[in-house]
Structure formats: C-alpha cells, structure tokens
C-alpha cells in the first residue's frame, strides 16, 4: 500500500465534496451518465473517492469500487448504501490488486489517472484483472496541445500534485503504453476533459 498517496487523499477529504460535488459534477453529469450507462457484467470501479459518481451509475449493476483512501471510503459509504444494486467498497491500491487474472468484464475510472502515481503500471494492473476483450471506460482530464492552455496546465501541475491531481498527463498515451487496444477518445471539453475507451486484447 502506497502510504504517501493514501495520506494525501485522506487529507483531501475535508474539502473534496465542497470543491467537486456541485459545479463539476453537475457540469459533467450528462457525459458521465452516458459513459456509465455501458456498465454490464462484473465491474471494477477504480478510485470511488467520496462516491460522487455513484449517482450516475445505472441501477442493478454488480460493482466493486476500490479506493486507496479509507477516509474517502467512509464518505462514500452512505452513497454506496443507497445504490440500487450490488456495490462493494474495498480499501485497495490499484498497484496491489489482489484479484485473480481475468476477474472483471469492465473497468471504469473517473478523474483517476491524473492522480495514480505510476499510471502505466496501474493501467497494466487493471488489464491483468480484466477478462480478455474486456473494456475500460475512463472519464479523465489531461494536458492540452493548445496554447496557452497546455502551458497553464504545465505550470500549475507542480502545485496541484502536492494536494491533488496532476493536470498535464497524457492519459490516452498511457492507456496505449499499458497494452490496451481499440483506443477511442471522445472530447468533453477542449482536448482536456475526455472520455477514453479501450479494450484489453484477446
């Protein structure tokens, strides 16, 4: 377990729902609902946080939701309990997934791979527990190739990574580096906020 990252996100709990719970989630709601509407089968959700995304999950699904921060999971518990389906919360680090190979049909993430310390390794760990041909659906924010936005995100990242996410990652490239195929990238806002879909080969 990466205790440094755990401590960082435990520390972020206090203001997390205030910063992220209203404006960002309302703005992103249509896209998240559409992404998560594809949930089908045995699902792994990485980095459930305080459970803000649960409101967008279609009912009746079988979901295992993990997070590195036990304090985030405490906040997520009431939302998980209200979910109309099977939703299990687990305190787990993506780099230490203890599921057998090919356990899950699908993996979903939401603003996660801006923060996973070793993103390509984390994605490879997800690929391991996905069944061959299984899909990953990701709602993420990344850097930008447009000036001056890319520069702004690069300049802000050294500050933001101390308290939260990195703002300039190239997550689609990381997904490819991890061995996923059939990559598609749908823009949500500029080339910064996006939906990434890919498949584990097989």
């Amino acid at each position, binding site marked *: 377990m990466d205790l440094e990252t755990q401590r960082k996100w435990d520390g972020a709990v206090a203001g997390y729902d*205030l*910063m*992220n719970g*209203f*404006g*960002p989630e*309302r*703005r*992103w709601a249509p896209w998240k609902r559409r992404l998560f509407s594809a949930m089908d089968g045995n699902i792994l959700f990485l980095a459930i946080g305080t459970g803000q995304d649960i409101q967008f999950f279609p009912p009746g699904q079988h979901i295992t939701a993990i997070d590195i921060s036990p304090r985030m999971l405490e906040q997520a518990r009431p939302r998980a309990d209200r979910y109309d389906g099977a939703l299990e919360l687990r305190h787990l680090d993506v780099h230490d997934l203890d599921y057998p190979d090919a356990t899950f049909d699908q993996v979903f993430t939401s603003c996660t791979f801006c923060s996973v310390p070793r993103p390509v390794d984390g994605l490879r760990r997800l690929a391991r527990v996905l069944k061959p041909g299984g899909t990953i659906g990701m709602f993420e*924010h990344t850097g930008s190739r*447009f000036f*001056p*936005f890319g520069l*702004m995100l690069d300049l802000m990242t050294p500050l933001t990574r101390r308290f939260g996410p990195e703002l300039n990652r190239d997550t689609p490239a990381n997904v490819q580096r991890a061995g996923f195929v059939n990559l598609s990238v*749908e*823009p949500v*806002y*500029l*080339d*910064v*906020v996006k939906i990434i879909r890919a498949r584990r080969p097989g």
Partner: protein
Amino acid sequence: MERRLYFLIGDLVSNTGVGAAAALTVALCVNEAWPMPLGMVVGMLAGDVVALPAAVGLSILFGAMELMLPVMLSGMLTGMVVGMRAASGPVSPAAAAALGAALGLAALAATYGLNAYVLAKYRREEARR
C-alpha cells in the same frame, strides 16, 4: 457549445467579472513610468494572480476545467492588455474595468470557439469511421 443556462450565465459572469477585477488590479499597479514590455509582463502575471483564486472559488459553482481555463485566460489576457495600456497613459478605474470585462468576454468566446472546433473535428472523424 454550452447550452445549459446556468453554466452559460456562470461562464459569462465569471469571465467578465474576473476580467474586470484583473484589469482594476493591474491599472492600480502599472503607470506611465513603466516601460511597456514590463507593464505587459507584470500585468499578465498580476492578472493570473487575481484569476487563480477566483477560478478555484468559482469552480465550486460552475465546474472545473470548463471554468478554470477560460478564467485563467481572461486574467492573463486582461492583465497583459491593461498593463500595456496603463504603461502608455492614465487609465480610469471605470475604463479599466470595462476593458477587462470586454476582454474576459473575448477570452470566453475564443474558448467556446476552440471547444466547438474540437467537437466538430471529432464528429467528422467519427462520421468517417
């Protein structure tokens, strides 16, 4: 393009407000004694110093990247232009605020335009598949 009235109004108010605030701040700091390039650079930095905490606060209401990036652009652009203007001659607070609000609106429009371009490009590529 954003069509939800709440976010449309939020974007307009945020960008014109931050533009005006950044412009007022820069107009108070920079004067004709400054070389114009220095006024421009300091103005740009001061504009972003004003814009960043505003963006953090406004994002609670209106969204994350969709709010922050145009607002930061508004602050930077406004600071730069008003810094150059203030280094050229006196600028009244009212004139600075009006110019800042207009530049904030321009920055928002440019970001909306760029977003429309990105989405249109994606849709064309999808249609070809």
